[in-house]
């Protein structure tokens, strides 16, 4: 099987008959919540996107009590010696669901869990894997970022989901300052720590077995990118991803695999519109509160959740660019 071959026929749809069992796997939830969780779980599928690589497409939505913050693309890579979790999920409940999906497909131990960056939809699933004692891999700046924000996010998420379904803040046990490699026996996974871009703790991964790039949230597809690091830095890191040379990638949000070049072109199209529009606003003394309503509007039809996030992105970009 080639890197680019998505095999939808291999997709495993979470069936109705397993709802109550899977519901129970969401952990500590009351019976009254079962139907809604069941509905959320029912819509999830695991797609085999490369040899031994399974991904679940996250919902294009914001976190709600019903969706358990299952909004990121999460999955795992099965190697000869063990399993690497590419993204843990958006909550303990989401992580437990993923762990059960792994158990359905392989008896191998879960040896590695990647924490791709600080955002809650990517790290709160980690609590489900603590019992497996894996290596938790993260960017060298992730510990610091989680120290500053982890507890804040946890409280916020538990307001939404309840303590039991939220889970703890899990810190990396192996950090990457530049690049690092993990060997699963028959495949190597190469990690790159990126400069401030989507956040200040973005970690990407390339799998030697499939050639697939896992840029996490350095690549948004369909869902509007959210800026929380550096706009200029993100444009630079996008170039770097391109230079890495893979043909296919697994974005943090959107379809589970895409051709890298056109997806990056869409992403940088938005980021460039955001940068140029914000710069023009600053140059013309357009205030921040007016800029949020005008900048990058030409991109509106291209992205889901545009109205929810664009104004915020402009606010973040304005603060970065006004000091240039």
């Amino acid at each position: 099987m080639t890197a680019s071959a998505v095999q939808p026929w291999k997709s495993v749809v979470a069936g109705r008959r397993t709802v109550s069992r899977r519901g129970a796997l969401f952990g500590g939830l009351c019976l009254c919540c079962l139907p809604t969780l069941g509905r959320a779980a029912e819509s999830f599928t695991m797609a085999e996107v490369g040899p031994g690589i399974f991904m679940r497409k996250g919902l294009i939505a914001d976190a709600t009590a019903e969706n358990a913050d299952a909004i990121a693309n999460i999955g795992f890579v099965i190697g000869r010696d063990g399993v690497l979790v590419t993204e843990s999920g958006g909550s303990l409940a989401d992580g437990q669901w993923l762990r059960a999906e792994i158990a359905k497909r392989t008896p191998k131990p879960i040896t590695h869990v990647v924490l791709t960056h600080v955002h809650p939809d990517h790290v709160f699933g980690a609590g489900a894997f603590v019992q497996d004692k894996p290596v938790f891999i993260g960017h060298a700046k992730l510990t610091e970022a989680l120290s500053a924000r982890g507890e804040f996010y946890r409280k916020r998420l538990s307001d939404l989901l309840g303590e039991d379904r939220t889970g703890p803040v899990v810190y990396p046990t192996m950090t990457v300052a530049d690049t690092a490699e993990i060997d699963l026996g028959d495949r190597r996974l190469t990690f790159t720590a990126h400069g401030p871009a989507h956040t200040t703790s973005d970690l990407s991964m390339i799998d030697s077995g499939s050639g697939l790039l896992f840029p996490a949230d350095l690549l948004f597809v369909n869902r509007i990118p959210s800026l929380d690091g550096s706009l200029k830095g993100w444009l630079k890191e996008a170039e770097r991803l391109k230079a890495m040379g893979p043909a296919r990638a697994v974005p943090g949000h959107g379809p589970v695999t895409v051709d890298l070049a056109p997806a990056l072109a869409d992403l940088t199209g938005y980021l460039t519109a955001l940068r140029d529009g914000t710069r023009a606003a600053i140059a013309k003394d357009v205030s921040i509160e007016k800029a949020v309503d005008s900048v990058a509007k030409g991109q509106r039809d291209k992205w889901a959740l545009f109205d929810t996030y664009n104004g915020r992105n402009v606010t973040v970009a304005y603060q970065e660019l006004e000091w240039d």
Partner: protein
Amino acid sequence: MTSRINRTVLALGLALAATAVTGPLAGAARAAGASDTDQERAARWHEIATSIFGDRAITPTDSLVKIDAPVRALDAALVPITLTMPKDGQIKAVSLIIDDNPAPYAARFAFGPAADPAELKLRVRVNNYTDMHAVVETQDGKLYEAKQFVKASGGCSAPMGMSDEEAMKGMGDMRMKFADAQPGQPVEATLMVRHPNFSGMQMNQVTRDFTPARYIDKIVVSAGDQTVFTLTGDISISSNPVINFAFKPDGKPIQVAASDNQGGHWQHSFTPPSPTN
């Protein structure tokens, strides 16, 4: 009030909203205080107003001052506020109070002879669904208030996107941008100050400690020997404060002196453009 803002208002015991402002959780949770009745809000405002202004009467106004703020904040840690005070020569000072913030008294601008207080912009943190009040003091010593309701949460406790160390880089650096000057007209200017303005509510989990409050407590802007304004600030002002104001130019440089509550002191001088005919 001459020195710094009266912090006794802290003792009001306002609940801290532990809600996020960043990422996909933004706006998802219900903020504390969201369901308060108008009556409860009015009672709280009365308590705050008394602690700041004593028993002086405050009259509602729709002509002396107006607050413009987004009804729903996009970023609770940076809510842009515009205060409009169209009556030239009548305004001595304006105070901005964010009723449900942990330290509600956000800022007070005392205007000097070189000020044109017609429009003032600043950026604030909003921790809760709250009423915001602007209170102006007129030259005859009377107080007038305007009100605006804002929906936001977590702005004061929101962690910054970087480490404390990085946030403090370049602390005290300043910039000033001037709009085009017309002869005999006030000049619009934007003052930017590099300062994290730590609220004291941003937690570092490694040290299990809160980053101590470190905020700009005073900025004096002068045109030559004449004061434009003296700002008394607090933790509700966003990090890297940006203030838009207008002044009456007399050809001399604009001096800015800023200090923070931990003894930091910075001074810069800026040359405004000459009027073009």
